[in-house]
């Protein structure tokens, strides 16, 4: 079973994303409400998450900073990370594109297709 970690400070986003991926894909979902909590949860997860979905704008450590910290951690460096953002302007998209994320997904997401989008980007057939 795939294990996915969602990091977002908005409780309803975490809940809808988690329930939709559990329902439509049967994945196991872990959730964290901040970048710091997400790093800790990912590093202590056994097995490690197969993918991480993280928000851009969070209080404290934002998404890009959280991602950089994960890239510095040898345990977490290989995990695919998706950026989840409500920023749809071209300037923001160009900024995110060069950061090394697996893909940028846009909010609002469709709960029925979220898991499919992730599977497609990662080439998961199961």
């Amino acid at each position, binding site marked *: 079973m795939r294990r996915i970690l969602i990091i977002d400070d*908005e409780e*309803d*986003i975490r*809940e*809808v994303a988690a*329930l*939709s991926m559990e*329902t*439509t894909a049967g994945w196991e979902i872990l959730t964290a409400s901040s970048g710091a909590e997400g790093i800790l949860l990912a590093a202590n997860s056994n097995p490690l998450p197969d993918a991480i979905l993280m928000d851009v*704008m969070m209080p404290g450590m934002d998404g890009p900073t959280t991602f950089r910290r994960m890239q510095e951690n040898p345990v977490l460096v290989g995990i695919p990370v998706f950026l989840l*953002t*409500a920023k*749809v302007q071209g300037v923001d998209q160009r900024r995110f594109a060069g950061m090394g994320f697996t893909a940028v997904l846009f*909010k*609002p*997401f*469709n*709960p*029925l297709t979220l898991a499919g989008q992730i599977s497609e980007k990662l080439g998961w057939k199961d």
Partner: protein
Amino acid sequence: MMDTNFEDETRSMQQAVWKRYRPVVLERLDLLDRAAAAAKGGALSEELHGEATSVAHKLAGSLGMYGYDEGTRIAREIEVLLEDTVPASERLWELAIELRSAVFPVV
């Protein structure tokens, strides 16, 4: 093609979360109303301006998830408007009203 049972289950879960989340959305709409009223009166404080920008961003990113695509579109327009140091107050006022109607239409 997604299994119809999964689709129904997902939609029902979505509705259940929305029901619980409605009070938060109402609080956010109230805050946007206060910001629009303050802007109209030329008294939008830096703090309220910042809070309204954050709230508009959050609404833009979440309303469509519950099927309120028009709500997301309007919230996004409000967010862009609030990026100006002195936002266009009349338009902000109109959009705040439109946003509430899009999410909670008066019947």
